[in-house]
């Protein structure tokens, strides 16, 4: 089976969209990433990544309703597609397998 390839930042963005569930759009994703990872991310970088993930088919987007707080401009909400969810699961599985394959002494050293 061909496994999905996800870059590290792509994975984070994808996960964040999943975390935010129905409320994922540019601003929330950026702020969520900043809060959770503590790293400063470029606004346009997040947008670009969201765009790329949509092109790869992991995300779908639809325009929301008119909003009052941003001059009536609508938001573009992102949701995970089936492929997106599968990609996350795949990544998770690979990690788990690798973790399970770790020798016990290494695990001990890492504090497990």
């Amino acid at each position, binding site marked *: 089976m061909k496994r999905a390839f996800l870059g590290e930042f792509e994975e984070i963005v994808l996960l964040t969209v999943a975390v935010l569930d129905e409320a994922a*759009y*540019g*601003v929330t994703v950026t702020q969520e990433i900043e809060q959770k990872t503590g790293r400063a991310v*470029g606004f346009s970088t997040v*947008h*670009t990544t969201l*765009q790329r993930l949509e092109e790869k088919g992991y995300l779908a987007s639809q325009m929301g309703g008119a909003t009052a707080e941003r001059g009536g*401009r*609508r938001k573009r909400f992102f949701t995970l597609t089936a492929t997106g969810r599968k990609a996350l699961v795949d990544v998770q599985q690979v990690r788990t397998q690798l973790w399970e394959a770790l020798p016990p002494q290494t695990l001990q050293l890492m504090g497990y």
Partner: protein
Amino acid sequence: MTPLPKPPRLADRLLEWLVAPHRLEAIQGDLHEEFAYQVGRVGLRRAQWRYWRDLLGFARPWAVKRLPTDYSSPFFLHPDMLSNYLKIAWRNLVRQKLYSLINLCGLALGLAASVLILLWVQNELSFDSYHRKANTTYRVTNTLKVSGEPWIWSSSPLVLGDLAQRQIPDVERITRFKKPWQPINFRVHDDIFSEENSAFIDSTWFACFDYEFLAGSATHALDEPGSVILTENKARTWFGDPQTAVGKTVLMDTTLLTVQAVVRNNRPNSSFRYDVLVPIAASFKSAADRKNDLDWNNFNYQLFLQLKPGTSTAKIGQQLTQFYRAYKKDSTLTASLLPLKFIHFETSFQNDELPKGSRNTVWMLGLVGLVILIIASINYVNLSTALASQRAKEVGVKKIIGAGRGALFGQFLIESTLLTVLALGVALLLIWLSLPLFNDFTENQFSLDLGNGTLWLLLLGSVVATVVLSGVYPAALLSSLLPVKVLKGGNVLSLSNAKFRQGLVVTQFAASIILIISTMIIFQQLRFVQSKDPGYQRDHVFCLQLPFSKMMSGTRAIDVMKRQLRELSGVAAVTSANQPIVNNMSSHSGSLKWAAKPDDFTPAVSQFSVEPEFRSVFDLKLTAGRWFRRDMRLDTANVILNEAAVKSLGLKAPVVGQWFEFQSRRGQIIGVTQDFNFKSLHEKIDPMVLFDAPGWHAYIFTKVNPGATERVLADAERIWKASYPDKPFKYTFLDDSFAQLYKTEQKAGQLFNVFAGIAVLISCLGLFGLATFSAERRHREIGVRKVLGASVQNIVALLSKDFLKLVLVAIVIASPLAWYAMNRWLQTFAYHVAMPWWVFVLAGLLAVVTALLTISFQSIRAALTNPVKSLRSE
């Protein structure tokens, strides 16, 4: 709730321009929301910075790329659009045949005239700057100041150059040339050529000045003292073919010279117009000649210095002046340096034979060229804005379909460019046809050489200037039309536009009238100059100049020739003098003494060596005393003064009989002549001393009986050939040399005449176009008026009135301007006509009549049309 802080406006605009419309809403919304959040977090200033940074992050293909649409709005310079513009422009040109023709003719004439003028102006302004080392090359100027006016020479002693080369380390190279005293004769095979344009040059000449060698080389052409270098044309006249000339020999008097090189003809912007170049060494026929030139007192050479970069010219000048102090033992002379590029416009020299230009003429003609271009452009502006209503629907529809203002602007600009380029084609043809005439007139060698970069630049510049002048306003106007107004119908153009058009017509006619008035006044002044009695008779007198070498051998040669001429039938009288009476350039100061002379007064006077017979030939009038007489032996020491001299020397009456010392000879003042103009009328009559010293004479004047001219000239040539077989026979009639004095003015007058004609023609073309348009537009009104009983005269008057008013306003504006300009020009003459008021009336009448004639064709046609024709279509 306080209003939220807004992100930077400029950044927002940039974003809207940058990001594709289908992505913009979400991205801009996100950015704004983020901005509001950041303002709360880090403050306004840093949020703004962040906004800018984030925004620039969206300069990525995915965000910028537009969705393809079915209704694309291509960039206005897209090839498809360009071809569309050209197609529409062409259709319009063809549909409006008359207006297009008027525009084309006007622009072509204007372009041709101004390109010719620019060609000349550019040439004048670029004199001598084409030499690679022009920026570091200087000519030595010598200024002698004893008392009164300084004497400024462009020539230096031969030895000064040698000293400069040897003793001033900052001088990289020197070079010199001298012009022979008179044309040199070259014997080629059996033919004798007398070459006016020959010069003796240093061996470093070609290292300093750039020549293009067609045969031979710059480095070796001057290796031998017996060399001669020819220009292409000269080699062709002498040998038939420039290529075979090298190696051939010619005889310069008795010196054998070998042609070492052939160079390309002198450029029109070169000060050095010499076709035959011979090393200086070859000019010395004897040791005495050489010694003579090595003397510090003989200023025969123009000396050029090439300095090392960064050298102070003042310092070099001081060093040269020091040489005069040390070697010439002279404290009255100072040397200075004049940059090579400035030589052409520097006219303060007493003896500079290099061709001179006048900055005033250059600027004046340049201005005239620009004015003509403006007049031609105004035609286009007027016609295309007048015709705007016909294009209005096109503009309206295009705007509704989605054309932006910029695109429409571009379209109309491209239309005017197309017309200008077409006009340029016609203009090039006109230039090509008139270039021989122009060259003849300006004594230059311009050519339509399309490999010449400057010419291209000139053409391009004129086209761009024309497009800007003619295209921008109509394009801006047409592209500003509002579709709703246009499609609703009615008058699309505001009243102010019509006013603007009228203003332009006034400008055109004012400029034309100024040119007409100037032309008339110039010709008035020239007629005045030609017809003013100069105080002597110059009709039927021709003048011969004796060869310099023969003159030195005593007075016998000149006496023999005078006797022979006198014996010819048809000769009324013969006399001689040191200078031609028409333009006496000989002046003197220093040796004058008289009884009441103050010690510190050393006046400069013109000196004129004459003889007893001189007075009757020229019919000079005496106001006191007597003329020189053959039977008075002492008369060779006596002098006659002119009235100006009596006045400026402060002589007390009775003047006649006072002792007077001149040129170390003491005698008496035996008479006073009436003032006569012995120089051009630009100058006041200077004080003059006339004296009788036959040894000075170099010019023979022969007065011929009317009708005998041809026979006498043939006989005179025979006599000349018998005495001087190796010198060509050259004579000038005093009338001709008199006319020569005003050659520049004559030429300026003729040029003005031509350009005034062109300006009037172009203005009339424009007026014709407008009259046609107005007759067309008002044809229904005319029909109604005729039905109601208006006569043909009424209609013609109705149509002409508006335009005549404009011409009258133009006359009112032009007259004072022309008066001011021409008054300044007349002031350059010491003797000039009073400003003739009738010229203004005549020019005004001329303008009115021309305008009336131009309009009448259309107005009469419109008035004669059967009203049924114009009204039935309603």
